[in-house]
C-alpha cells in the first residue's frame, strides 16, 4: 500500500470520484488553474477540464448556493471553501438551504453536495486562517460534518461524503495536509459516515477527540504506555450528528474521560460529547469528565508566541491523561 499525505488522499478521492461519476464536479476559488491554494485539486483541471473543475468568482454564498442548485438538478458538486473561516458568508445557504431542503420539501428535493474546507491552526495563519468552524454547524439537523484524522480516513470518508445523498461538510485540517502521512489503498473503498473509530485500544483513560489532535494523543499515548498508562482513543470522525453509541461505549471502557478539541472550549463539539456521557453513563465514571481545548478567545493570533500560547500543547495532553489515570 502506498504511503501518501493527507492532502494527497484528498486529491485521490476527488480524482477517483470524478472519474467514477460524471455528475461529480469541483468548484471553488482558485481550484482550477491554480489547483487550489493548498493544491488539493492539483492536476484535476488538466485532467477533467474547466467544466468539471470550476474556478468561481470570489463569492462564497454563490459557491454554496449555486452548488445547492446543481445538486438539486442531480449533480454531485464538491464545493471548496478556501479556508473554513471564509464559509460564513455562505452560512445562510448552508444552514437555511442545504440542510433543510429535504425536510421542507417532504423528501422531494435533495441536496447531495459536499463542502470541503481546510480548518485548524498552527500554521501561522492568524485569527482568520486558523479557526475551527465545526461548532457553528454542529447544531443543524440535516447536515453531516466529517473531520478525518488520517489519509486513510480522508479518502474513505471523502468518497462516502460525495456519494452521500445529503449535504456533508468536510473539514480538512490544513496542518495535517503535509504533516500527516499514512497508508492508503489505491483501490476504491468508502468508510461509513456517522461512525467514530477506535484509533487505539486501552484500559486506563479514554480520550475522545478528532482531527489533528488524534495524532497528539497517539504520541502522548506512546509515551504514557511506558509509564504504564494505557490510553483508549476514540476518533469521532463525524462530529455531527455524533456517534452516541461509540461515545458511550468508549467512556464506559475506562470510566475516565478526556475530551479534546482545538476549538474554543465553550460551546464546542466536545461539550455535546460531555453531555452525552453525563446523560448516559454518569455512574460508570470514576472521575469527572475533563476537557482540553483552546481558550475562549477569538482565535489564534499571528505572532508566534501568541499562537503557541493559544494552542493546546503536548505536555498538557500528557498531564491531563496522567492526572486522570492517577485520579
Amino acid at each position, binding site marked *: 500500500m502506498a504511503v501518501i499525505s493527507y492532502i494527497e488522499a484528498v486529491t485521490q478521492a476527488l480524482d477517483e470520484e470524478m472519474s467514477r461519476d460524471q455528475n461529480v464536479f469541483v468548484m471553488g476559488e482558485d481550484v482550477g488553474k491554480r489547483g487550489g491554494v493548498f493544491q488539493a485539486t492539483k492536476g484535476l483541471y488538466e485532467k477533467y477540464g474547466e467544466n468539471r473543475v470550476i474556478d468561481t*468568482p470570489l463569492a462564497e454564498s*454563490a459557491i454554496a448556493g449555486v452548488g*445547492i442548485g*446543481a445538486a*438539486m438538478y*442531480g449533480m454531485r458538486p464538491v464545493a471548496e471553501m478556501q479556508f473554513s473561516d471564509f464559509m460564513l458568508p455562505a452560512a445562510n445557504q448552508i444552514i437555511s438551504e442545504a440542510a433543510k431542503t*429535504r425536510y421542507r420539501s417532504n423528501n*422531494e428535493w435533495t441536496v447531495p453536495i459536499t463542502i470541503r474546507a481546510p480548518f485548524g491552526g498552527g500554521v501561522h495563519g492568524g485569527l482568520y486562517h486558523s479557526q475551527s468552524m465545526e461548532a457553528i454547524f454542529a447544531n443543524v439537523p440535516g447536515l453531516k460534518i466529517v473531520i478525518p484524522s488520517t489519509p486513510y480516513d480522508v479518502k474513505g470518508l471523502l468518497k462516502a461524503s460525495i456519494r452521500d445523498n445529503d449535504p456533508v461538510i468536510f473539514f480538512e485540517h490544513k496542518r495535517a495536509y503535509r504533516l500527516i502521512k499514512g497508508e492508503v489503498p489505491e483501490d476504491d473503498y468508502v468508510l461509513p459516515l456517522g461512525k467514530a473509530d477506535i484509533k487505539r485500544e486501552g484500559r486506563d483513560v479514554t480520550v475522545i477527540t478528532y482531527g489533528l489532535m488524534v495524532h497528539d494523543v497517539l504520541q502522548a499515548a506512546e509515551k504514557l504506555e511506558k509509564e504504564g498508562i494505557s490510553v483508549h482513543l476514540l476518533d469521532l470522525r463525524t462530529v455531527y450528528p455524533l456517534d452516541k453509541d461509540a461515545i458511550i461505549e468508549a467512556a464506559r471502557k475506562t470510566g475516565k474521560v478526556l475530551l479534546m478539541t482545538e476549538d474554543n472550549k465553550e460551546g464546542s463539539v466536545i461539550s455535546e460529547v460531555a453531555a452525552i456521557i453525563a446523560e448516559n453513563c454518569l455512574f460508570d465514571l470514576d472521575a469527572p469528565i475533563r476537557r482540553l481545548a483552546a481558550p475562549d478567545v477569538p482565535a489564534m493570533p499571528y505572532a508566534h508566541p501568541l499562537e503557541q500560547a493559544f494552542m493546546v500543547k503536548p505536555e498538557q495532553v500528557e498531564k491531563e491523561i496522567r492526572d486522570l489515570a492517577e485520579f
Partner: protein
Amino acid sequence: MIRESSSTTQVKNRHRELGLSDQDVLNMYTQMLKARRVDERLWLLNRAGKIPFVVSCQGQEAAQVGAAFALNQKKDYVAPYYRDFGFVFAWGMTVKELMLNNFAKAEDPNSGGRQMPGHFGYRKLRMLSHSSPVTTQNPHAVGIALAAKLKGDDVVSFVTFGEGSSNQGDFHEAANFASVFKLPVIFLCENNHYAISVSLKRQLACAHVSDRATGYGMPGKTFDGNDPLAAYAAVKEAADRAHRGEGPTLLEADGYRLMPHTSDDNDLSYRTKKEVEDAKKRDGVLTFADYLRAIGILDEVTEEKLEEQIRKEIDEATDYAEHAPFATADTVFRYVYEDKD
C-alpha cells in the same frame, strides 16, 4: 371554442404579433383570474378563522402568468417565490393543490404542510423548493442552469423575487455568477413597490431594478407588470437568448401589491388608501379583461362561464383541503436525512 378575433376590432391586436392565439390569451386570462379568485377566497377563509395566514398575489398575476406562458413547461426549471400564484397555476399546480398548501395538509405537494403557505416546490413540475429567507433561490436557479449546461441539456432556469430582495447579497452573487458563465437564467424581479412597509425609494436608489443588469454585463429590461403580454414578450426574448447560449437576463415587472404584505400586516400604517385605489385602476386582471373584450375574445357569456367554473373549482378544492388529513405527528421525525430503509 372561441372565435378568432376579427380584424375590424378598434383595438390593436397585440397578442397575434407575439405568436399567441386567441385561445392562448384566453387561457392566460383564465389563469390570472383563477389566481385572483383563489387569493380572494384565502382572505375570506382567513377572516373566517379557517386558515391562520395568507400571503397574497393580488396585483402581480399578469406578470406571473405572462412569464409562465413564455417558458417551456415540459423542460424548464422554475423557482417561483411566495406571491406567484399566477405562475404556479399556469405552470400546472391545481387549485386543489394550492388549497392543500394553504390548509397545510399532508397531501400538499409543496411540503406536506411543513412549510408556510406560498413556499412552493413541486419536483414533478421541476419547481424548486422555496424557503422563507428571501433571495436564497437565486443562486439555486443559477446552479440548475450550470448543471444543465454541464450536462448539455437545453433548459432555461427561471427565478422570481421581490424588489426589496434584490438588495440581498445573494441576488448580486447569483447574477454575477450566471453572467460570468453565460448561463441560461432568467431573473424576474416582481417589483410591487413595497417590501413589507418599506417603499421602493428606501430600498433602492436607482430608477429601475433592471438598471442593475449593467453591473453584471447582462441585458436588463423593465416591463409593465400589469400587462401579461409585455411579460410574455420579455420572458420569451430572455428565453430565446438563453437557448442561444447568450446567458442570463434581468427582467423587472413594474407592478403594485394591492393587498397588505400578508394577513399579519396593516398596510395603512405605511401607505394611503388613495395610493392603493389608484393602483387598482391599473390592475392587470381588469385591464387585460378590457383588452380581451375590446378585441372581441371575451364576452359576458364567456366571462360568466369562466367565473362560474373557477368558483366551482375553488369550492371543491376548499372543501377537499379543509377536510383532508394533516400529516400525523410521528412524521415530524422523517426526512431529516435520506431514509436508508
